[in-house]
Every structure is written in C-alpha cells, then in structure tokens.
C-alpha cells in the first residue's frame, strides 16, 4: 500500500530528504511492489507521457498505448532507479526515450538497442560526479538563463527529435534560424551544466 512510501519518507536519510515525492513512490514500487504508489505515479506521468508522444506526432491511440507500456516499464525496472543519480522525471523520461526508439522500430518486443542510463553503475569521470540535487540546481539555473526563444526551440526538439524542418514549421522560422538557435542554446547549456571545462 501507499503506506510503504510514507514509511520511506519517515525514515529518510539526508540524501532522501532532497528526494522528490515521485522518487519515493518509485522506491516504494521497487521495494514493496506498492500498487498504490504505482497508481499515483501513473496518474501524474501517464497523461504527460501520452502528451509527449502526441507532440512528437503520434495519434492519440498510439500515444496512450505508449504511455501504458512506458509505465509498465517503470513497474518492471523500478529497482534500477537510483535517486542519487537522477530525478524521478528524468528517469521516467529516459524510459520513454528508450521506448520511443523501440516504437520507431514498430516491434513490440524488448529490443537490444542500447538503453541510456537506467542502470545505476554506469562509469563516470570523477570530475563529472555531481549529486542529483546539484544537477537539479544547475538545470534550473540553465533554464532560467535561456531566452524564451531558445527554450521554445529546445522544447520542440525534445518532441520532434532531429526533424528540424518540422520545428521550423511549428515556429514559423527559417530552418537556418532553428539550427543556429539550437546551437546557441546548447553552448549555453554546456557552459552552465558542465562542472569543469576541458577536453576529452
């Protein structure tokens, strides 16, 4: 029951004190197969996942199936969620992102395509290690510093992928303007989000 999630909240450590509500719900699903916790996640995220795919151009029916499948993956893979590495929304977005590639293949089965970042033990360079809270703070700062124009084009890029001509049509802008706006927004994001400068 959802009581488990409340329990997690009660005995929270300094790390989980920064954890968002949704992160606690995912942990309750992982630890106790808590259906009430899952239902609350579903109520919040499924309609947004559906909206995400509809913005990407899918019809409502397919988008609803997509949202259901993605939420089933949340249930199955909840134990891979590491709240110190990613926020709940980021983790669920990543599931949707991997899932969207599967949908593109028009195949129902679980694919062997490289999934991003669902496993907690991905090696990372030490200088890139920031806590989830630090990452979230930087992200907020970055989003504050982007212009509304840049934010609009980034948002659309998340829905439309590399279909820059569709983004251009949606914003009624020349293709070149869309591309240069994305590049400038990415330069700003790098400056703010990357902990250290350097070469690799």
């Amino acid at each position, binding site marked *: 029951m959802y009581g488990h999630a409340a329990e997690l909240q009660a005995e929270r450590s300094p790390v989980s004190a920064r954890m968002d509500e949704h992160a606690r719900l995912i942990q309750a699903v992982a630890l106790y*197969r808590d*259906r009430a916790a*899952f239902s609350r996640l*579903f*109520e919040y995220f499924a*309609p*947004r*996942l*559906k*909206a995400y795919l509809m*913005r990407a151009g899918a019809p*409502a029916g397919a988008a*609803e199936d997509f*949202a*259901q499948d993605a*939420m*089933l993956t949340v249930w*199955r*893979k909840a134990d891979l969620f590491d709240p110190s590495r*990613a*926020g*709940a*929304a*980021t983790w*669920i*977005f*990543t599931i*949707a992102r991997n*899932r*969207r*590639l599967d949908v*593109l*293949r028009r195949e129902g089965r679980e*694919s*062997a*395509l*490289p999934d*991003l*970042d669902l496993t907690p033990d991905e090696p*990372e*360079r030490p200088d*890139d290690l920031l806590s989830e809270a630090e*990452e*979230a703070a930087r*992200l907020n700062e*970055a989003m504050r510093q982007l212009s509304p124009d840049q934010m609009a084009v*980034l*948002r659309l*890029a*998340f829905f439309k*992928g*590399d*279909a820059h001509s569709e983004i251009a049509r949606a914003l009624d802008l020349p293709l070149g303007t869309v*591309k240069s706006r*994305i*590049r400038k927004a*990415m330069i700003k*994001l790098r400056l703010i989000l*990357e902990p250290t400068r350097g070469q*690799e």
Partner: protein
Amino acid sequence: MTALRHTVSDERLLAYAAGGLSPPEAVVVAAHLSFRPRTAAFARRLQALGGQVLRDLEPEPMGDNALAEVLARTEVDAGAARTPPPLNDMPQLPEPLRRLPLGPWRWMGPGVRVRDVHGPRDGACRVILLEIQPGRTTPRHTHGGVELTCVLTGAYATETERFEVGDMEEADHQTLHQPRVVSDEPCLCVAALDGQILLDGWLGKLLQPFVRM
C-alpha cells in the same frame, strides 16, 4: 590531442538525448559516446532537461481503464525475468554494441569485409560493421542518404581528414567517399547507412553487381 574534433553535432546530440534519432543513428551515436565520457555525461544532463520538459507538459487525459489495464499486466508480469539478449561474438566492440546480433561477414572487395548489425532498422536505414585491412581503401562510393560512421579500431583517412578510434564522421549524399586505412591494424567501423551505397569508378562498376552493402 584532437579533442572534440570529429564528434557528434549538437543538434544530433540533442535529438539523441530526446529519443528522436532513427534507431540506426542512435546505435552509432551510442557507440561514439562510449569513447567520449564527457559528451556522454552532457547527454545525460540533456535528459534531465527532458525530464523537466515532461513535467511541464499539459497532460492528455488517459482512458478510464488505462491504469487498471496496466495493473492487470503487472500481475501477469510479476515473475517475468529480465534476461538481456546474449553477447555477440565480437568482444572488441564497445558495450552499446555487444548485445546486438550480427550477421555473417561478407566479402566486399580486396581487404574489405562487412557484416550486418541486426535489429536497429528504420526503413532503408540500417547498421553495418565494416572492416578494412591496413593500406586498403573501400571502392569509391556515394550514398543515397546520410552515413554516420564511428571508428572502433584503427584509423582511416579521407581525401581531406583523418579519423581515429572513437571519432565520428557524418557524410551526406554529396560526399564522394573513399576512406583509406592508415593504421597498422585493421580499421573496424560501425556505420548507419541510409539507402544503397553507389559505387563509383571502373572498379565500382565491376563490383556493384556482386556487392551487397
């Protein structure tokens, strides 16, 4: 150090983080990022931006039974084990490619062989592994669509540039391509091809009927 040279473009990286690349392109970018930990970390940060975009979306109401249906599926699913697909026969491949099934090697000219990477397809776009022996070139060719290539071992040079392990090259249909291997070891590449490769020149015309690339 030739850092950040021959890497993925910002637009393509963003599309990758967003899940908006075709699966074959995504496979090549994933292979490339396994050689570029800093860019890979940036891609993960872009996904956090994706999480925020997801939160900010105006919700689309789900059907009345949507939740009940998924809960019913979790019942059936309870014992389902997650078994990853088996590793393929090439331990030298980077981790993102290790569990993709591979077709047989095919001869493609002197010192050149190719094998299909099964799975990631999108219409005419697919993934291949290409191995070229030291000093050899592929036949001159042009492409129907964009070709993304990532060097996995060795190095090759085109008319103007040199590509080493981990480097990525984007070529479009205007590029006339004749990479020559400049490393002492064979050059192994993973490539996403869109459309047929058109061979050019007398050797190409000779080979075209026999070469299925």
